[in-house]
C-alpha cells in the first residue's frame, strides 16, 4: 500500500498482574501501518490481539502494564504522552469500535447524544451544526430515517443497527485510524456482510487506515490489505494478504488455514486440526511458544525463540525452519 507510515509499534511488551506474578500478554511485537491501509490482526482467544490494539489508545485495564516498547503515531510516542494529549487523540485521530454493540453503547443516552459526545469534546460545532453532522453521519453509515433514530435508545435498535451507530460514533471526528476489535463477531452472517461492505466503502471514501482484529480468516481475506498473525502474544508471521493465504511460511498460519472448513471443499476432505492447545501464558519458557504443537518442531525450537526472518516484499516470519533449513 502506498502512503506514509501512520503508526509504528516497536517491540511492545505488556504483562498483567495476577496475584503476585506477572503474566506476559504481549512479548515484544512490532508492526507498522500505512495511511489508507487495512491491517488485519488474526489470532485465537488469548493470543493478545485485543490487548495490542487497546495499547494503541492506552486502554489497558488496571492490572495491565506496558513494560517496554513504543507506539509512534504521526511521529509521536503515544506511550509518552500526557493524559491530556492522549484524551485529545482518543475518538479524534484514533477511534475504536468494539465487538459487542449492546454493551458498548450506553443504555441511558439516545443515539444522537452518544454520537454527539465526541463532537462536543473535539470540535467547535454549535448544537445546530452538531445535529446536522450527526444526521449526516447516520446517513453515511446507512441508517434509514435518521431523524427518528437520533432520538432512540440502544435497546430499540437491532444488533446490526447498533454496530452502525458505533461506527457513526467512531467516524464523527474523521479519524485517521479506526481500530475495529472483532466488530462483526456478534452479528449474523448476512449482517456481518453488510457491515464489512460498509467499512470497505467508508475506508475508501474517507481514506482512513483500519486495524481490523478478528479470528475469522474469511473476514480477513475480504477486507484486509496486510495481515499480522499472532500466537501466544507474539507475531509469528506478517505480510500481504496474498503472502499469508498463498505462501504462508509459519506452521501455525498453515495449520490455521488447513483447519477451517471451506465452502468449496467437498465433504470427503478431512480437516487437519492443529493438535493440542495454546500454551498457558504463565508457564511460557524460553522456547518457541508453538513448538509443542508444531509438526516441524526441532531441538532448537525447544531451546530458544526463533528470530524474525525477512522473506522480502514485507513478508516476515519467525520460525527456526526458515533460519536453519
Amino acid at each position, binding site marked *: 500500500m502506498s502512503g506514509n507510515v501512520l503508526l509504528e509499534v516497536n517491540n511492545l511488551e505488556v504483562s498483567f498482574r495476577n496475584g503476585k506474578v506477572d503474566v506476559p500478554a504481549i512479548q515484544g511485537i512490532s508492526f507498522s501501518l500505512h495511511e489508507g491501509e487495512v491491517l488485519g490482526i488474526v489470532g485465537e482467544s488469548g493470543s493478545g490481539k485485543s490487548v495490542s490494539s487497546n495499547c494503541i489508545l492506552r486502554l489497558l485495564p488496571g492490572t495491565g502494564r506496558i513494560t517496554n516498547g513504543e507506539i509512534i503515531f504521526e511521529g509521536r510516542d503515544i506511550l509518552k504522552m500526557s493524559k491530556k494529549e492522549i484524551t485529545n487523540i482518543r475518538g479524534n485521530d484514533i477511534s475504536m469500535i468494539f465487538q459487542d454493540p449492546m454493551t458498548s453503547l450506553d443504555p441511558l443516552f439516545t443515539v444522537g447524544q452518544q454520537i454527539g459526545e465526541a463532537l462536543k469534546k473535539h470540535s467547535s460545532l454549535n448544537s445546530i451544526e452538531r445535529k446536522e453532522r450527526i444526521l449526516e453521519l447516520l446517513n453515511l453509515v446507512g441508517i434509514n430515517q435518521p431523524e427518528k433514530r437520533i432520538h432512540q435508545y440502544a435497546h430499540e435498535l437491532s444488533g*446490526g443497527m447498533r454496530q452502525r451507530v458505533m461506527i457513526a460514533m467512531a467516524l464523527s471526528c474523521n479519524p485517521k485510524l479506526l481500530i475495529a476489535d472483532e466488530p462483526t463477531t456478534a452479528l449474523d452472517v448476512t449482517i456481518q456482510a453488510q457491515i*464489512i461492505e460498509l467499512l470497505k466503502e467508508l475506508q475508501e471514501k474517507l481514506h482512513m487506515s483500519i486495524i481490523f482484529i478478528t479470528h475469522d480468516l474469511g473476514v480477513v481475506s475480504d477486507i484486509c490489505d496486510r495481515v499480522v498473525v499472532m500466537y501466544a502474544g507474539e507475531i509469528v508471521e506478517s505480510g500481504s494478504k496474498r503472502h499469508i*493465504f498463498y505462501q504462508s511460511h509459519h506452521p501455525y498460519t498453515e495449520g490455521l488455514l488447513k483447519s477451517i472448513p*471451506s465452502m468449496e471443499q467437498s465433504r470427503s476432505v478431512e480437516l487437519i486440526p492443529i493438535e493440542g492447545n495454546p500454551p498457558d501464558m504463565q508457564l511460557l519458557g524460553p522456547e518457541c511458544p508453538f513448538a509443542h504443537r508444531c509438526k516441524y518442531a526441532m531441538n532448537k525450537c525447544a531451546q530458544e525463540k526463533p528470530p524474525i526472518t525477512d522473506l522480502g516484499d514485507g513478508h516476515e516470519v519467525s520460525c527456526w525452519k526458515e533460519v536453519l533449513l
Partner: protein
Amino acid sequence: MSDKLLEVRNLRKYFEIKQGLFKKVHVKAVDDVSFEIKRGETLGLVGESGCGKTTLGRCVLQITKPTSGEIFFQGQKLEHKGMKDYRKKMQIVFQDPYASLDPRKTVADIIGEGLDIHKMFKNKVKRRERILELMDLVGLNKKFYNRYPHEFSGGQRQRIGIARAVAVSPEFIVCDEPVSALDVSIQAQVINMLEKLQNEYGLTYLFIAHDLAVVKHISDRIGVLYLGHLVEIAESEELCDNPRHPYTQMLLSAVPIADPDESERRQREKPEGEIPSPINPPSGCPFRTRCKYVTGICSEKFPEFTEVSPGHMVACFHHTTTPYLSVTKPATEGVSHLPQNEISDDDLNNNANDYIADVRGGVSDDRIIDEGGM
C-alpha cells in the same frame, strides 16, 4: 442408510409472551416444520439467530414441549412425558461448554451421570472402566478423571460434553452449535472427533449451527430455517451449488471466503435488510421483506414446500424464476447457468422490479412465472 430414524411432522412451537397486563402474543419460534433423518445421516440446520434452530432441536428431544406436531423416532411417536427410555437413545451436545457442565461435579461424575440414571453399570469397577474408555475415546487424558470442569479449556470441556452424550450409547445426537464457542484450531479437532464417532458407532446427527462452512463440511443434507420456517432442504452439495431459495442464496453469498482471489472474484450481493421481529412476522412468506424477487402473492400465503429436483425441496413462489446463483464458483460460471449468457445482476434486479410492477398492474402470478422462463 435408507431407513428413517427420525421423522418430524408439522412441528410447531409457539411461546406465549405477555404484553401489558392482559394482552398475550405468540412468538412462533418453530412454525410447521417437517423433515426426516435417515439412520447414519447428518442433517445440518442453518439459520440466523432467532430463526428457531435451537428450539427445533430441543423440541425434537422433547426437552421443550412442542405446541403441536408429531415426532417419530424409529417409528414410535414421542410424548413429552415418558421420554426416559428414549433419553438413552437420543442425546444432546450443547453450545456453551462453560454453562452446560455442572461446576460441582467431577469429570467422571458428569460423564457417568447417564450411566447411573439408566443403571447401566451396577459394578463400580466396570463403571470406572467405561468412563475411562469414554475419556480415551474423546481424547481426554485419563488423569483428569477426578478433576472439575473449571480446570479445562473450552475445547476440552466440549470433549467432556460429547463424552457425556455418547456414554449411554445413543443412536441419535442433537449437536446444538457444538463448535461455535471454540477457537478455529480447536473447532477442527472437535469436528473431526464428531465425524470419527459417527463412523465408529453409526451415529445419526442433527447438527445445528450458524456457520455454513462448518455445516457443509459435516452434513449429508442441509435444511435452512428462516423465522421458524424451513425454507429449503437438500443434499449439502446440491444446496450449496444450486441454492433455489433467495434466502439461501443470500446466506451463501454472505459467507466470507478465506481465499483472497476467490473473495475478489465472487459476485457478492449485498444482503438486504435485517431479520424481522418474530413477534410480528410479515404475513405470507416471512422472507418477502428482504427478497428481491418479491411479488404480490408473497404477502398472501406461505409458499408450499415443493420438490424442485429429487430430494431438493424449497418453499418459494418464485423458485422457477430465481436464477441459479453459483456462489462458490467463479462469477463467469455462475452466469452461464442462465438462459442468456449476458444477463447481469442489474438486469435481474430490473426484472424483479418489473415483476413487481406487473403484479401491481393486475397480472396474474402464473403468467409472471411463465414469462421468467428460466
